[in-house]
């Protein structure tokens, strides 16, 4: 007897769909069949307009396919447009120019270590070895980077480029413009509702809610679009879905803010799981250690801490005046240390600061001061007083740190002091710190060619995924600057795969 895997998969998917849809309050429509009439047919449909979606759409279009890109929000870019624009690449001309020795193998080793053994190496290698070509791809489409590389937490050497704008919008805007210029059909306020599949289970299109008004799930008009070659899911993570993230980690409740844009609610992932996509490491959720409780979302402090406070300053426990972690450790290590500063169930916000030399490249300093989330002090004692830090041990900590900087050896927490400076020149700039939900390492399982795995271990034909919606690449902790690498690389890989797909007869 031959088991019909397609039917079995659909039955299981149906059950998952019912549970997932009911839980998220969505009205679950019946699974759409191949008898659907299409309002319009494309070769490729890309869902989501961040790094991964834009890269996939643009490369698919440049490869000759007709492409529709849909974005449920009223702005292109997703989280990619508001992130820090930091892109880690090994072996760039800029690194060579700065005399920094690096290699993809070294970057791979850093990422394996950060992932704590959970990374899927085949995916990780795709991202690492695809990063330099992806960087070159961005240059071809007009992206501009600062003229120095940065040293992000968890990396063994400086290798992180950053857009001149200090935001991912420096990448998403040029790519959006390139998509439009080359003829991708770009739609805002168009939300993916359901997959359309043929009798064999191949994904051949989507039901889309046109003129969708987030978060009104009944707004707009349903349309059905065909995709001859395939659908690419690039819908990002679920950091803003409080219900779903709490299922993975009950501590990630509503008290924890998120750095993400409001639309990062994970419906794309849930829809793929509903049709039997394989979940991978869904509970691996990263918090950003550089955020401030004094502003919402990603804010201004994140960039300040990333470029000034953490590499060139120190972070102290306000109760003791002392450091409590390596300020350049990877995000998981820092986040765990910061979240450890709880007292009677309430956060004790640490303070991160640097001096006037350290803030030279801090682009958000001016606005941070204007909105009061970063503060300026003429003396260490004034700083200590403002935040309730005991002055004597604090001043002693700074003196100790300065001695370690001179000796190039952090005996306290073994931090790399390559970019550190002696903290001796007033004024000093400081901010309060608390982590926010930032990145979902888990997602749907994919092959190294960005094909979506079903729960039976075979691929779901016609369905591809890339970027944060996928799981396995980053394991337990994503290194800073590697989400851009992942999104751009795997977006291009998804395009390459979908271009090779045999067209469905629709």
């Amino acid at each position, binding site marked *: 007897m031959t088991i019909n895997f397609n039917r079995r998969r659909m039955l299981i998917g149906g059950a998952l769909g019912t549970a997932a849809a009911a839980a998220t309050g969505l009205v679950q429509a019946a699974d759409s069949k191949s008898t659907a009439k299409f309002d319009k047919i494309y070769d490729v449909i890309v869902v989501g*307009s961040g790094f991964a979606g834009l890269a996939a759409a643009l490369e698919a279009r440049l490869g000759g396919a007709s492409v529709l890109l849909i974005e449920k929000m*009223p702005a292109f870019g997703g989280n990619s447009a508001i992130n820090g624009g930091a892109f880690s690449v090994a072996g760039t001309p800029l690194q060579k120019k700065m005399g920094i020795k690096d290699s993809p193998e070294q970057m791979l080793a850093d990422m394996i270590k950060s992932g704590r053994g959970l990374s899927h190496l085949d995916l990780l290698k795709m991202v690492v070895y695809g990063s330099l070509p992806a960087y070159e791809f961005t240059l071809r489409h007009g992206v501009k980077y600062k003229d120095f590389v940065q040293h992000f937490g968890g990396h063994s050497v400086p290798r992180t480029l950053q857009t001149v704008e200090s*935001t991912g919008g420096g990448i998403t805007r040029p790519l959006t413009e390139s998509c439009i210029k080359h003829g991708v059909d770009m739609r805002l306020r168009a939300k993916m509702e359901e997959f359309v599949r043929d009798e064999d289970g191949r994904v051949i299109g989507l039901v889309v809610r046109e003129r969708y008004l987030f978060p009104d799930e009944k707004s707009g*008009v349903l349309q059905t679009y065909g995709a001859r070659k395939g659908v690419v899911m690039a819908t990002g993570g679920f950091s803003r879905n409080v219900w779903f993230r709490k299922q993975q980690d009950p501590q990630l409740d509503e008290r924890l803010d998120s750095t993400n844009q*409001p639309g990062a609610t994970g419906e794309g992932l849930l829809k793929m799981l509903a049709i039997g996509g394989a979940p991978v490491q869904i509970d691996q959720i990263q918090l950003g250690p550089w955020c401030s409780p004094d*502003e919402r*979302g990603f804010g201004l402090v994140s960039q300040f801490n990333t470029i000034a406070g953490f590499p060139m300053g120190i972070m102290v426990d306000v109760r003791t005046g002392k450091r409590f972690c390596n300020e350049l450790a990877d995000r998981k290590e820092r986040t765990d240390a910061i979240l450890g500063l709880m007292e009677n169930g309430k956060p004790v916000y640490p303070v991160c600061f640097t001096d006037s030399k350290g803030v030279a490249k801090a682009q958000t300093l001016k606005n941070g001061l204007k909105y009061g989330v970063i503060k300026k002090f003429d003396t260490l004692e004034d700083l200590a007083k403002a935040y309730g830090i005991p002055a004597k041990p604090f001043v002693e900590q700074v003196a100790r740190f300065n001695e370690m900087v001179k000796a190039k050896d952090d005996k306290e927490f073994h931090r790399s002091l390559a970019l550190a400076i002696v903290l001796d020149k007033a004024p000093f700039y400081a901010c309060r710190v608390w982590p926010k939900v930032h990145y979902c390492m888990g997602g749907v399982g994919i092959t190294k060619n960005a094909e979506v795995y079903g729960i039976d271990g075979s691929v779901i034909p016609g369905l591809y995924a890339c970027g944060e919606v996928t799981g396995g690449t980053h394991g337990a902790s994503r290194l800073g600057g590697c989400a851009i690498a992942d999104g751009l690389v795997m977006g291009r890989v998804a395009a390459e795969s979908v271009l090779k797909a045999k067209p469905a007869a629709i």
Partner: protein
Amino acid sequence: MPTVKPYHQTIKDCAVCHTEENAVAGNKFVVPSDKTCMGCHGDYKAMAEKTKNLPEPNPHWSNHYGSGLSCTACHREHSQSKVYCNECHEFSYKIK
């Protein structure tokens, strides 16, 4: 009749915004496309020029979105308008 903004009170015809061209599957009363707004108010560059001297960053030209942001992300005709930037920032824009 849905409420309209004071500055659009002189418009008597729903079809000024809810045009045939804007319809989806024959439904005219959906969120209009940006082309409709730009038909009267000009494109993003024109709007950015008008608002370049505000004390806050230019709401019509940000480093995050450029021209990739729908007019209706902020400007709502039949309900409260809301500045999309302030999902993350604390700008003191006054939006009508």
